[in-house]
């Protein structure tokens, strides 16, 4: 293969890769959040995140266990949530990925990886990955978040504000 032909081969290969990626991501839908079995800890956590993203604080607060709700009132939760959204940089995009779920019985821990990208991705805007471990408890047959959180941050971090 001559050098000039190798350039043509590289260009063709890259264009083919782009076409494949467009087909998979745009046409086939790309990587979408998985639907978890109803009644599972993961499904409960997903419902909490969906409610949070929609700004439905009543629904997301309802995902906390009774113990967590005793430690943080709904009014406090609303106020912390407002502070959190105010302090989050505009243009921050987040993806929440499940690493694994550990524990058994009525107490499990869902280990998450939060991937954050800032702005348009140019100039070192990520993605940056952080870990979160969310404790879940089974109350009356339903899985709930055992600790008070603001999105996925411990609520204690907001009490000083």
């Amino acid at each position, binding site marked *: 293969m*001559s*050098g*000039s032909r*190798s*350039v043509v081969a*590289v*260009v063709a290969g*890259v264009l083919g*890769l*782009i076409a*494949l*990626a*467009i087909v*998979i*991501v*745009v046409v*086939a839908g*790309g*990587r*979408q*959040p*998985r639907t*978890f079995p109803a009644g599972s800890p*993961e499904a409960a*956590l*997903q419902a909490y*995140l*969906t409610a949070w*993203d929609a700004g439905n604080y009543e629904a997301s607060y309802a995902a906390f266990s009774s113990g967590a709700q005793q430690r943080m009132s709904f009014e406090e939760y609303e106020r912390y949530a407002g502070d959190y959204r105010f302090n989050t940089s505009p243009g921050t*995009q*987040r*993806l*929440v*990925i*499940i*690493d*694994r779920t*550990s524990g058994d019985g009525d107490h499990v821990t869902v*280990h*998450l*990886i*939060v*991937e954050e*990208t800032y702005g*348009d*991705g*140019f100039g070192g805007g990520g*993605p940056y*990955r*952080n*870990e979160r*471990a969310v404790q879940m408890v089974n109350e009356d047959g339903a899985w709930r978040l055992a600790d008070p959180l603001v999105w996925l941050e411990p609520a204690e971090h907001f009490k000083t504000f």
Partner: protein
Amino acid sequence: MDVVRRLYLYAMSAVSLGVLWYGLQVLLMVLLRAVGLGGVVIGGDPDNERRALSLAISLVGVGLPVWAVHWFLVERSLNRARPTAEAERRSALRALYLSAVLAALIVLGAAAGADLIRQVVHRILPDVELYLGDAAGSLATLVVSAAAWALHAWARRRDAALGELRGAAAWWPRAYRYALAFVGVALLLEGVGALLALGVDALTGSGVPGAGSDPSFTDSYGFRLAQALPNVVIGLVAWASHAWASDRLAAEVDWRGDSERRSRLRLGYWPIVFGVAAVAVILHANEGLRPLLGRLLGVRSDFFQPLDDLGLVAAVARAMGAALPWIVAWWLHRRWSRAEAAASGEPAAAVLLDRLERHVVAATGLAFSAVGAGWIVGLAIDVLLGGNRATIPDGGWRYELAGFLSLAVLGLPLWVWNWSRLIARRGGDPSEAASPVRRAYLLLVVAVAILSSLGGLAIVLYRLVAFLLGAEVPGNAVSELSTPVGALAVALAVVVYHGLALRADQAVRAPELTTPTVPPIEVGPAAAAADEDASATAEPAVRHTLVLTTPADADIGETLAALRGVLPEGQSLDEA
């Protein structure tokens, strides 16, 4: 192709290749995530993937045309129908560009490969800690880097296949190969040493097992395994592939083999490995000898951590485990290098190799033993002159003494063993005094000793000047000065000893330098004719030493006869 145009094309190729590489990495990462690699998404922004795809397409859209056009122009200039083809193929800038791109890509790919291995370990041992690696991102980096590396390696291979390359066009890629082989072997040996040390801890129950303890603790067995294993795998791949490529080239019968076998880089690779192996063995062995000597001096801790009897045994065994791979590698490289020198059929090659190894290892041993000796002499001065370093109640001086004594004990045998052999060789063969390696060693030792004593000298002068000026300086004067004075005393001894050796060598070389030049040295009929010619014109004959390389089965007599047949009148060719 003129130099300015060449600079422009390679600079543009490099920048656009970087943009293209990044775009392709993001593109492949999106693709791999879309097919399920990289974790299960539970929530977040649903447009994340499309945004990443947009970023990738924009980067590729910018980088690909610019790179393709400029790399096409570079490749076109290599077309053999063009008059510039040979100049381009032989250009140092092209060799530098290809070597730098190959090195950068392999570093990126190796880092991604190491990350992937770490993720596998953490997946197997999930209770050790949560690892934040991104499988899709790492695999994308590895694949894109490998593809780009293969393209540039192919370009370099094609350059070499088209004919002889000399000078920088030959040694830039060679420097890349030997640098990668060296980094690879160092990673491999450190990784194997870390695994052996981990095995010792697991057997003796030392260290932090990790299970049930703080999962993020970085001394846990799982974390240490996840750090060591990538070093072993990546180091083995880098070393084996690049050392194998170099050995394969050296075995070639064409110009590539000849160039490789005679290269100074290949010759220099061996002593660098010996020197670094000596440093690694001393440093690792020190980790075991220091607590052992400390115990003899009444210290029952190491690095301020209590150390019981089992802990001491584990520390010694761990140090031996970490040092063992370096000792084995040293021995193997020694065998390989000597076998190659012997196979070259040139006795001088074996002598030069031995000379290089002995000087490098002697310098390493001397450096460690001098540091240890300087501190010990300082402590002795302190005790003899009534300082307070050895009377401090916490006994910290015992721990420090154990550390410096350990360095001296480990370094001294290396220096004594190698230097005594060099002295014996110098005694048996006075021409050894003219060796540039020996001279470089002696001058380097003198220079380092002088430079390392400057700090101590400044402290001594500071105290002296302050005393003369009547300024009060806090602290015990004896204790403040004992360490710098000890270091100065040892540095002075090193300078004097090696300075005398330099002077003795100079005395041997001096007659050579003052010998009248241009004696009539040619012999034989042709030389006689030359002598007659020289006496007739009163111009002296000049002797040139040339190197003739032939295949092993060549008829040297026939070759010399052919060469003599084409010599100009008045010139002769004789075997030395």
